[in-house]
């Protein structure tokens, strides 16, 4: 075990290549590093938040291969060869906010914002797979994201405002 002379033990450290927000990142990581910590500590993408670290709160939800996943429940090595989208990949700096994020801002869909990155990745998947979700669909989708300060009313209202039926609402 002599520093750089030592051949890397693949059972303990691995070279991985992960596409994050359309950029390919290569890094050598400990095999026990979680994907959440890889994103935050190795890539400095701190928009993905870490709340409970055992898969309950949903704050660390990212898209892996287009599907939502708890990044605290994946190892970084498991993302090797896959494409990950984080909150940083859902908007472009200097450009207007995309409709979902603008709707959240307009409807008081966030307060402290800690849970918001996970909520946005969750809702991105929901609206992609089901463009006209019912209120129940929206609430079931959000059941895996714990928000403890804003409350869900504003978040549901934000999603509802984006639906094709929103324009037909009678407004008093």
């Amino acid at each position, binding site marked *: 075990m002599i520093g750089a002379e030592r051949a890397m033990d693949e059972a*303990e450290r691995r070279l991985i290549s992960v596409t994050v927000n359309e950029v390919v990142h290569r890094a050598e990581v400990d095999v*026990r590093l979680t994907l959440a910590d890889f994103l935050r500590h190795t890539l400095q993408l701190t928009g993905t938040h870490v709340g409970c670290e*055992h898969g309950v709160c949903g704050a660390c939800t990212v898209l892996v291969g287009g599907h939502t*996943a*708890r990044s605290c*429940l*994946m190892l970084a090595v*498991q993302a090797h060869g896959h494409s990950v989208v984080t909150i940083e990949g859902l908007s472009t700096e200097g450009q207007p906010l995309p409709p979902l994020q603008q709707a959240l801002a307009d409807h008081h869909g966030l307060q402290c914002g800690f849970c918001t990155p996970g909520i946005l990745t969750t809702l991105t998947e929901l609206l992609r797979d089901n463009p006209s979700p019912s209120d129940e669909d929206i609430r079931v989708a959000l059941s895996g994201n714990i928000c403890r300060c804003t409350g869900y009313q504003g978040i549901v209202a934000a999603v509802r405002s984006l639906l094709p039926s929103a324009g037909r609402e009678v407004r008093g």
Partner: protein
Amino acid sequence: MKPPPFRYYDPQTADEAVGLLASLENAKLLAGGQSLMPMLNMRFVQPDHVIDLNRVPELAFIREEAGRIRIGAMTRQRDLEFSPLVAERLPLIGAGLHHVGHRQTRNRGTIGGSLCHLDPAAELVTVAMTLDAEIVARGPQGERRLAMAEFPLGFMTPALELDEMLVAIDIPVPPAGHGAGFVEMARRHGDFAIVSAAATIELDGAGRIARAVLVLGGVDVSPLRMGEVEEALAGQAPSAAIFADHCRLCGAVEAMDDALVSGTYRRRIAPVMARRALEQAARHAMAKVAA
């Protein structure tokens, strides 16, 4: 760094995985990671070796062969949820999956992982028991099959040898006209059930119950098949009164206490869950007759 140190392997084939399992001491198989990863993060488990099955494509499939549906152990819960074949042939699976965690966890979670973790309240364990599934396990000596009813040996303990791996489950397809019902009581959507009930009902030509299956989850250390209720229902015309009457037996079972819920409460709600599951299954079967 939350998980304890371990050595990591990502085999490409099931045989390679079984070989590793047989040759390594204190090894854990990593399936969807929705239970093992939290346990690693909290250091409840400290394996020396983690064998990741996520790069073994041969373990993820849904196939129909000769009146049976075979599901690979690494099939994601999401893929079962959205499979038209499963929805048509085994509607109980979709009904149960609706209560399993959340979309984010079903995207990763697998059927094999859930069955082997064997949480007493896991919906897929209860569903597999209700559907008379068979477990296909592979070890260094080859494959063997065992009935789901014999799979739980005790609290969270599957009947697998240390060098054996669950590779698939095999489910006989019930008659097309059967109805399925799954209900549960949980404190929040997606939580493990305090009590769940799964039921299937087949009707005869006269609209009477030809066969009923009823299983309670979350009550005892593993799902309880309510054979007495099933026998009592055979030959009866389905009605709310009949179900309520026979489901009283579900209140006389052994029930677990835990930190949040007493066995007394579980016995109190078990008959209600059972009745509702049977009513749902009967309505489903009758709707198919009408269609």
